[in-house]
């Protein structure tokens, strides 16, 4: 007796899904038309005075040689600060969902051997990316992504914590980027320079400090996002497991 009702309901659901996808397609097409119109307007707008020349001329005073890094961490430091906060909020959202699912099974000797080579290389490359961002393509986001990739590889190889420390330390590492950014900004404000307005003499070192903190925070956040849940939400049990997992992640190197 319930079958006709079921049929009707599934029919209606299918119709609704079709209507929804049609609506989405129309909206997307409209968005595409608007974007194209804006693009052509910008193309035909003529060469009005733009900010690019001014920004490029001031790069030597920004403390870094790479214009992209100068824009990201100096001219538009607010944007980067809020971007780091967005990443932090994403990890908080993931942590609030559910405890971390169990990891994958322990890798065999071949994969473990490769991981013991790849992970240190990734960490060194990440440091290089961070440093090279001062005068060439690179920077905190790329360096942090490499650190996060190292975490993903460690988790795929069977370490359920992705090589991350316990929850208490992890919290500090996650907020490190926003914290350092805000502290530097506030300190500059107290010194009378204005929020995140670096004095040209100190700019290089302040930017390096902020970028290092941001790299660690981004790497931790991406690896924590891949773990996919709060590390020790199951109570006190996993903390002992973490304590034993932490040395094992650092001893991923050649085993006898």
């Amino acid at each position, binding site marked *: 007796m319930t079958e006709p009702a079921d049929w009707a309901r599934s029919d209606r659901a299918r119709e609704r899904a079709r209507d929804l996808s049609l609506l989405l397609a129309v909206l997307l097409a409209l968005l595409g038309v608007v974007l194209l119109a804006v693009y052509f307007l910008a193309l035909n707008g003529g060469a009005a005075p733009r900010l690019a020349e001014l920004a490029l001329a001031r790069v030597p005073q920004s403390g870094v040689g790479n214009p992209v890094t100068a824009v990201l961490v100096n001219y538009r430091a607010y944007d980067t600060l809020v971007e780091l906060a967005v990443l932090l909020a994403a990890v908080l959202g993931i942590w609030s969902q559910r405890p971390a699912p169990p990891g994958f099974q322990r890798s065999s000797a071949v994969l473990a051997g490769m991981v013991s080579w790849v992970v240190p290389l990734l960490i060194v490359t990440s440091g290089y990316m961070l440093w090279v961002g001062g005068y060439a393509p690179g920077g905190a986001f790329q360096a942090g992504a490499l650190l*996060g990739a190292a975490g*993903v590889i460690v988790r795929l190889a069977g370490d359920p914590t992705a090589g991350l420390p316990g929850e208490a330390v992890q919290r500090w590492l996650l907020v490190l980027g926003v914290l350092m950014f805000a502290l530097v900004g506030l300190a500059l404000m107290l010194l009378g320079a204005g929020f995140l307005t670096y004095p040209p003499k100190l700019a290089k070192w302040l930017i390096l400090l902020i970028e290092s903190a941001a790299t660690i925070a981004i790497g931790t956040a991406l690896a924590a996002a891949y773990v996919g849940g709060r590390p020790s939400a199951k109570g006190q049990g996993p903390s002992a497991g973490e304590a034993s997992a932490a040395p094992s992640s650092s001893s991923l190197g050649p085993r006898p």
Partner: protein
Amino acid sequence: MSQPALLLAFDIVLLTTLLALALAAVLSPEPRRAVMLFIAFGLWLSLVWARLHAPDVALAEAAIGAGLGGALMLAAARRAARAAQRGTARRADDGAR
């Protein structure tokens, strides 16, 4: 063939493949396959960025867009598939009852 013509041909191949990958990723019915196509799309897009003389964006796209985003989405697709399986199993149980 002169160099500009070669570059033009390269660009056309690059863009056609990019559009084809994007369409395939969007139209793919299975999440896992869509994610794999999306990873390929991200790597290809990083080539396009490099061609546009934007090495910073190319690096970020390859590392974050294709690499880590792909890993996260693969994990999400696996969980979604497992949840869907559980859902169909429950529905089958209800039907048998």
